[in-house]
């Protein structure tokens, strides 16, 4: 039977090309591109097969015993596939974008090698079937992203890399302690819908609360929960494709996704509620939402403004997790996908401005909409989505989060959502106003890609953001149809609540 091997193959489909690329000579551009694309398409094809299986209640599980009582488990369940599909599709777009972005830059083999390793790690995080496997890929993600953060080799990049490592390895250490402790208390437990810890004797409750704290603190570093978010704005020194895929999607999502797994499939949402663990987490998420938005307001550097926006937006996912009830779950899970699509669009556009015209700051963006209308259109869609304008992706997320808050009996969350939407508007609308309505300045800071016919920039830079911007519209408009992210999130939410009676 090939079934158990499918999850492993999904991981290998980027790992093996990555290893080969790592050792390719710099000038083997075609071979490198071919390997990247073959890997990306193979991954999407494999995921397609598994999506079909999981929809029909099939589970794909790969299990390898590392040590007695310690298994490496890769499992493709509904929740895993939500994240895997997102990363695989966005990886394809980002690879195309990166090929265009890095044309002629040095050390591309190293870049794409580590880039593939990052995606491998992300896919592993998504499909991890127990905490140990999760930890393994979580740490691999740290190691594989570090070379990308310091890719440029400048003093600034090295310093950012230093801080990045300090945060993420520290978080990893906390996660390890929590994991070992949990294995000691509960033995080896696989992730399972509804969680597995509720069967333990009540006298372990105190330990379980401390373990929860350790795990969430470890995961919160990558999810950039305030006050553990300091690395994210620093990491923006990395090249744009890295910021786009890794720091907007993969790394922060790995943290948020881990929180989802711990709450739903280790503790079980109902058990977590009974241990009184959800409210503190909801408060932490709310603080992060507001704090991130406030800080974003005062950033002139475009990528830093987007980074603080990420801090705030990822906390929506965590918030959704903590809202006890299927609707809140739905809002959090669907935002996992929606935020990814919207934020990657914004970062692609920021990369385009920087690469084409040398624009790095909001204050340099006057009139850029006339010079680069398509890029600015994509940026506008992403920004409106973030604010939550219907019928874009972000609106769907916020709608369900709001409903979930009411369902969970936490109406104060509505105020947080409203305040955050206002702040979103406050830091995105001025950018749009400048770009579309202010007269362009006489010269761009550093125009390096000239207008060529109808192409405002290189085609490989323009097409990916347009595609993802279209996606923010589509997933919002067709949220109610089959196979939309919302539909899939419903499937997961149905399976997580075992004894739910509204």
């Amino acid at each position, binding site marked *: 039977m090939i079934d158990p091997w499918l999850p492993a193959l999904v991981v290998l489909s980027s790992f093996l090309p990555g290893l080969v690329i*790592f050792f390719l000579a710099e000038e083997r551009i075609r071979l490198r591109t071919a390997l990247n694309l073959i890997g990306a398409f193979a991954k999407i094809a494999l995921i397609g097969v598994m999506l079909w299986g999981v929809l029909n209640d099939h589970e794909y599980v790969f299990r390898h015993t590392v040590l007695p009582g310690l298994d490496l488990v890769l499992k493709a369940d509904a929740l895993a596939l939500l994240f895997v599909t997102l990363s695989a599709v966005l990886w394809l777009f980002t690879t195309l974008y990166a090929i265009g972005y890095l044309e002629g830059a040095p050390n591309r083999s190293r870049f794409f090698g580590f880039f593939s390793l990052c995606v491998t790690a992300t896919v592993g995080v998504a499909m991890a079937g127990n905490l140990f496997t999760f930890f393994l890929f979580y740490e691999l993600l740290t190691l594989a992203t570090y070379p990308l953060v310091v890719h440029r*080799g400048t003093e600034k990049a090295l310093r950012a890399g230093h801080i990045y490592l300090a945060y993420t390895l520290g978080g990893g250490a906390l996660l390890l302690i929590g994991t070992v402790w949990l294995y000691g208390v509960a033995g080896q437990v696989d992730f399972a819908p509804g969680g597995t810890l509720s069967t333990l004797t009540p006298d372990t409750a105190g330990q379980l609360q401390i373990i929860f704290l350790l795990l969430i603190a470890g995961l919160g570093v990558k999810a950039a929960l305030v006050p553990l978010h300091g690395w994210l704005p620093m990491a923006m020194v990395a090249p744009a494709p890295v910021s786009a895929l890794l720091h907007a999607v993969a790394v922060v999502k790995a943290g948020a996704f881990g929180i989802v797994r711990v709450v739903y499939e280790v503790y079980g949402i109902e058990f977590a509620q009974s241990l009184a663990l959800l409210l503190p987490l909801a408060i932490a998420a709310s603080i992060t939402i507001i704090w991130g938005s406030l800080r974003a307001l005062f950033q002139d550097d475009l990528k830093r403004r987007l980074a603080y926006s990420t801090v705030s937006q990822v906390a929506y996912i965590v918030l959704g997790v903590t809202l006890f009830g299927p609707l809140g779950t739905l809002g959090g899970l669907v935002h996992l996908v929606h935020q990814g699509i919207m934020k990657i669009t914004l970062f692609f556009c920021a990369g385009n401005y920087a690469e084409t015209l040398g624009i790095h700051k909001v204050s340099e963006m006057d009139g850029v909409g006339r010079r680069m209308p398509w890029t600015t259109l994509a940026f506008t869609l992403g920004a409106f989505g973030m604010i939550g304008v219907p019928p874009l992706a972000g609106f769907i997320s916020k709608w369900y989060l709001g409903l979930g808050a009411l369902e969970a009996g936490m109406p104060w969350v509505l105020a947080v959502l409203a305040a955050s939407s206002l702040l979103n508007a406050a830091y995105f609308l001025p950018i749009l106003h400048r770009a579309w309505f202010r007269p362009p300045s006489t010269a761009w800071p550093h125009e390096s890609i000239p207008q060529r016919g109808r192409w405002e920039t290189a085609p490989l830079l323009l097409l990916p953001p347009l595609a993802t911007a279209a996606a923010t519209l589509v997933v919002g408009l067709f949220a109610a149809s089959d196979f939309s992210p919302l539909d899939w999130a419903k499937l997961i939410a149905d399976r997580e609540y075992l004894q739910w009676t509204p």
Partner: protein
Amino acid sequence: MTDFPDPLPWLIVLPLLWGTLAFLLGPGRGGRLAIAAIALQGVLALQLAGQLLDDGSRVYAVGGWGAPLGIDLMADGLAAVMLLLTQAVALPLAVFARGYFAASPKGRELFWPLTGFLLAALNALFVSADLFNIYVTLELLGLAAVGLVAIAGGRQPVTAAMRYLFATLLGSGAYLLGVALIYGSYGSVSLAVLTPLLTSEAPLAVTLAAALILTGLLLKTALFPFHFWLPPAHGGAPAPVSALLSALVIKASFYLVLRLWLELFAPLATVAAAQLIGALGAAAILWGSWLALTQTRLKMLVAYSTVAQVGYLFLLFPLATLVPLGAADSAVQGGVMQAVAHGLAKAAMFAAAGSMIVATGRDDIGRLGGVGARLPLTLFSFGLAGVTLMGLPPSGGFSAKWLLLMAALESGQWWWVAVMIAGGLLTAAYVFKVLRRAFLPVAEGDRVTRVPRTLEFSAFALALAAILLGLFGAPLLELLAVGRAA
């Protein structure tokens, strides 16, 4: 099962033979002979491991005499694991050494003969069945190791060798005194005879003997605060020698401490003594890592890293002494796994460091710029070895740490958890200190040349083995269990 040829004696005779022949043949042909012979030793070690898994541990009487007149050799799971580690580390290092001495020929004439004697001593030590035979193999090992440190000549290496010689002689002196006291008390040096005789009511002389023997061995293992001799010796020797010493030689005395503690001296073991050894291990982890972080020379950094990693080995003693059985098993498995993982990873790391030094022409962490671009495979190997030392998964180092952490939790000794986690973070700090430099572009006026492929690939093979150990460690633990009372 076939009895011929029995791998046990050949694992000792073969390296003695090729060591002597290499002296006569010279470094060129001697090196080729050595590689072929070590490969054969690897096959023999595997064959022995297979036999042990099938039939359990066994004794071999040299020349058919048998103890007490003749010398007995004894192989159990623990010995087989160490034998496998020795040959697995020696083979890639031999390939590495041929390339290394082609690029930097100082000391190549004596490298092969001394390595042959070193391996013979190691293999003999692992299968020795009596205390006096262990003394002889320890001395042979020490003398071969000291000789290897000095082969390149030069003021710093010879000084380091001299210091190392005095340390190792002092250690074996203490050991021999302990053996004399035990012989005086029981009239035998055979481990099999002594083990049932030695009980918790043993006379004071025996307790003193145990203390002398263990102290002597700790000195040879360079456990804090006896680590003073190690960094100059390991950091000053040619890279293949540093790798052999750090990966294997200190493991030999650790192996003896472990075996004697668990078997012969088990009735004398107290919680206080175990906690003391563990505390020394913890101090070694923190102090060694800190000193590694402050080094400016690459090989000295790697050498101090050995001081720190030795500390992890000794954490097993408090975790395995007078605790519930499950925790003790887990601790011993973790300690042995750490010995194997560190052996592979440290050999890889010294080999990679040697390649970087050959490529840049100097031993200076600040001048590693350009290494990442010119020697990606070497840097990758260094990084993979670093992953093992940090204890990140999947790697042998992680498996070791996991087992030790589980043992710590099961026996309720959470303070060792804190030490291990802190040590992992400090390790990350000094490994990334090297990696981040190597990612930089080459500095003005510096030159990074390419190195022979064999240098890059042998280091990579070792690092990869350390990683794969983390995924396929279960058979090793199964082998380790052979001959150990469940």
